[in-house]
């Protein structure tokens, strides 16, 4: 081949590269705006718990039990879902209001890792041993404090929780890791860690453990083939800052999709384009088949450039997520400003919510693709109660409620009242994270609407690092903030912690104050003993119907008392090329709402993939 023909061949390869993607070679190119720091070997998420890492690992590791689009358990590596009815779930009272849960798991026969080695209970025991190692810097220490494992044989084991909560029955109760690959190295780490003291040598222990995970999860380790996989895909190549290529794992036999695995995508390429505008251009250019959860923004998904080119090429979906945007209100009565503004009176809070038009807001800002919230519980959560008190846009009602509290319009229209001989004007300082365009625009809109009822609101925004630092967000008691807009993640494993004054099961006080070293998430200081009782009881209730009743009542109380102003649930936006089936997500699919929870059945209809799931039926809102 002479020089010119080589150049022509190269040019053709580059041009053809884009055309070959998708159904033509049964591959899937996913566009993501984030790169995982590590993959696979960091099985306890000690180095990283990024969303993109968890999403890609959906393809690489099959769970024991997966949570489907309706957040229901479906068996993958386990033979069946443990239930009270099949006696694989056993709940016993152990006194002191505590319960113990035993979950019997049987693994499907002949499970294998991608290198052909058997996958059995030894791999679960290994995971458990590493998680229980002294001084392990875990992200979910409360799980590890309560869990235990009893291996019965190579296929059978019992996972025990003590004390147990209902959400321990959600998804996989235990993870696993390849002991045949990682075990020998772990033995060395254990020997090195033996003389160390978790309090005195915490940093040294952490370095030891991180090095261990890194040896099986870094870019170099993955490319050197140091890791094995159990899911429908394995990593072929990871080009740092560019792409991660996964290919079908022939040893995955836990689930065979309809018509056989060959009818489904054989190669998945995660293309990493950090700038979301550039990612949008890549989608428009046709180089991307679908976007990751960590992909484009709401504005970009609804941009004219995309929607005008979508017909017949792409479906654009808004998937309501678990991130709950709200305004927390300071209710510490020791704070003068709180008393002055009557923020500790529920009528004031109700008036604040009646005065803003949230329906028009989500319509104008998000084309209705992000739903208004009425409590902190996401509508996809099985515990969600749709029949709570709702606060429609009603400025007249807002004025009436404020008048009941004692507010009267002042000469300039701003409400005022007299407190101990002083005239107090209704002026609020509203804090949120600076630099967030949607929040800033929201402030402009709501400030105008509150002004209509006589409330003057000023913004006092600061960078995330400032407002989320312990000495700010946790210090409402010191009056650091009175009105604070931010987001919490509304967990599927709902336990009421965000608004409990006291957890009656653990005794922990959840309002940050000097006494508890400013711990806890009830940052605005709301106290409702019935709410505490219902939610504390609810987490111990393994009967779903009874649990629903308890949480339904808790939500009613919350909506009546309104400790915070519920605004909306953010959506995740997915762009999916026409013809790609089962690339679907819901608020809690796979436990966290990412696509790829059913990686084995993602495919192109034109290549014979059978469509099992419909995004619209799973709560997806189509963007046109």
């Amino acid at each position: 081949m002479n020089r010119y023909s080589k150049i022509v061949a190269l040019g053709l390869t580059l041009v053809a590269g884009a055309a070959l993607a998708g159904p033509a070679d049964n591959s899937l190119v996913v566009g993501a705006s984030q790169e995982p720091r590590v993959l696979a070997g960091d099985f306890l998420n000690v180095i990283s718990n990024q969303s993109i890492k968890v999403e890609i690992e959906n393809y690489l590791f099959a769970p024991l039990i997966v949570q489907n689009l309706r957040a229901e358990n479906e068996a993958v590596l386990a033979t069946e879902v443990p239930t009270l009815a099949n006696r694989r779930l056993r709940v016993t009272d152990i006194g002191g209001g505590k319960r113990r849960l035993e979950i019997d798991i049987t693994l499907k026969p002949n499970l294998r890792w991608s290198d052909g080695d058997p996958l059995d209970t030894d791999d679960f025991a290994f995971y458990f041993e590493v998680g229980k190692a002294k001084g392990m810097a875990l992200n979910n220490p409360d799980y590890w404090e309560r869990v235990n494992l009893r291996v019965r044989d190579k296929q059978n084991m019992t996972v025990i929780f003590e004390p147990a909560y209902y959400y321990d029955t959600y998804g996989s109760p235990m993870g696993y890791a390849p002991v045949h690959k990682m075990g020998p190295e772990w033995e060395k780490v254990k020997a090195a860690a033996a003389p160390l003291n978790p309090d005195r040598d915490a940093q040294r222990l952490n370095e030891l453990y991180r090095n261990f995970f890194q040896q099986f999860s870094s870019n170099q380790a993955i490319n050197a083939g140091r890791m094995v996989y159990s899911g429908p895909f394995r990593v072929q190549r990871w080009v740092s800052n560019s792409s991660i290529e996964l290919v079908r794992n022939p040893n995955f036999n836990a689930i065979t999709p309809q018509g056989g695995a060959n009818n489904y995508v054989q190669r998945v390429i995660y293309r990493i384009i950090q700038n979301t505008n550039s990612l949008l251009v890549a989608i428009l250019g046709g180089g991307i088949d679908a976007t990751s959860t960590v992909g484009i923004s709401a504005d970009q998904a609804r941009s004219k450039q995309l929607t005008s080119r979508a017909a017949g090429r792409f479906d654009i979906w808004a998937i309501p997520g678990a991130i709950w945007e709200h305004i927390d209100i300071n209710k510490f009565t020791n704070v003068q400003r709180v008393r002055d503004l009557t923020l500790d009176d529920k009528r004031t809070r109700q008036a604040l919510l009646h005065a803003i038009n949230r329906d028009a807001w989500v319509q104008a800002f998000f084309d209705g693709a992000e739903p208004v919230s009425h409590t902190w519980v996401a509508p996809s959560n099985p515990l969600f109660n749709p029949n709570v008190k709702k606060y429609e846009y009603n400025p007249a009602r807002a004025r009436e409620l404020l008048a009941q509290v004692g507010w009267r319009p002042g000469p300039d229209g701003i409400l005022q009242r007299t407190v101990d001989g002083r005239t107090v004007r209704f002026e609020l300082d509203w804090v949120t994270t600076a630099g967030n365009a949607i929040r800033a625009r929201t402030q402009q809109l709501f400030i105008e609407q509150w002004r209509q009822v006589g409330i003057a609101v000023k913004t006092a925004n600061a960078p995330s690092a400032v407002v989320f630092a312990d000495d700010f967000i946790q210090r409402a008691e010191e009056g650091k903030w009175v009105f604070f807009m931010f987001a919490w993640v509304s967990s599927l494993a709902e336990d009421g912690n965000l608004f409990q004054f006291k957890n009656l099961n653990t005794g922990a006080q959840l309002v940050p104050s000097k006494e508890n070293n400013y711990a806890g998430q009830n940052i605005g200081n709301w106290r409702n003993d019935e709410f505490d009782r219902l939610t504390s009881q609810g987490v111990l209730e393994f009967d779903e119907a009874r649990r629903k009743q308890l949480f339904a009542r808790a939500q009613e109380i919350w909506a009546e008392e309104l400790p915070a102003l519920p605004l909306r649930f953010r959506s995740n936006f997915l762009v999916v090329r026409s013809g790609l089936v089962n690339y679907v997500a819901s608020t809690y699919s796979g436990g966290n709402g990412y696509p790829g929870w059913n990686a084995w059945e993602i495919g192109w209809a034109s290549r014979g993939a059978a469509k099992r799931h419909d995004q619209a039926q799973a709560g997806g809102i189509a963007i046109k």
Partner: protein
Amino acid sequence: MIPLLFAASVVIFTLLALQPGDPLDELRQQNPRITAEQLEQLRRAYGLDQPIYVRYFKWLGRALQGDFGQSRTYASPAGQIIFGQRLPRTLVLSGAALTLALLVAIPVGIFSAVRQYSRADYVITFFSFVGFSMPIFFLGILLLFLFAVWLPEQIPWFPKFPVQSISDFQWSQVQSGEITFLQFIGDWAFKLVLPVLALSTIQMAAWTRYMRASLLEVLNQDYVRTARAKGLGERVVLYKHALRNALIPIVTLVGLAIPGVFGGAVITETIFSYPGMGRAIFDSLVEKDYNVAMAALAFLALLTATFNLLADLMYAVVDPRIRYS
């Protein structure tokens, strides 16, 4: 210079440590069940419980031996990320952009000066101003949209430019014979076209204007008139007498731009998904990945100090009137 670098590293380290919040804030946001005691344990595990000066001297001790610590976000040694990955890539991108800018700006500037007030001069002046005033985030996206979407949509044979500027090809694939060297270089070069073009535009436009102005000023000097009066050819007058003097301010400008080549170009790197120094510094500051930020910023401090020293020494070489004693 050593006390200066020591002082700079103290200031950088202190400023980083004084940033509000710490790397665990994000974790607390994500996991409402995490308790204060558990956070304290994590803080101890990451060494965040120690006073700033203890952390600084630990860092200094290791850095002097070439160990910049581990990156928390990249899970690799910070020195390897900065000096092994990011710096070479930044040098390729910024070096190529600088070279392109020079190769275009100098001849175009000369042309524009020589043909002052001609139609071509007006066109060049117009585009120089456009290029100079175009924000790079806009120009970058515009180039991407044009070359990756719009032109390929309009013209079927037009090559579709990639949005990603990093090649999927790796050197190991050339070594194993999977791809040829030509394919490897070709793919890298093809993907660098747009970012190099975007990054060079502003400098190209600015230097064209400087070159034009500088040459025009020289062309009006007495010695140029004398050269012409001596009956020298226009080419000799221009290239031998005028241009050499006109280039002096340009050389100064280029010299000033060189440290910037090492620092990276955060906006261009972001738009074109190019992992260089700019993004490494920006991301490490946002993610509070102190080891990476320290390695990069300390390196830039070293470079700045070194280039200042070199510049001082160069003055003596260039201008015989300057002597150091």
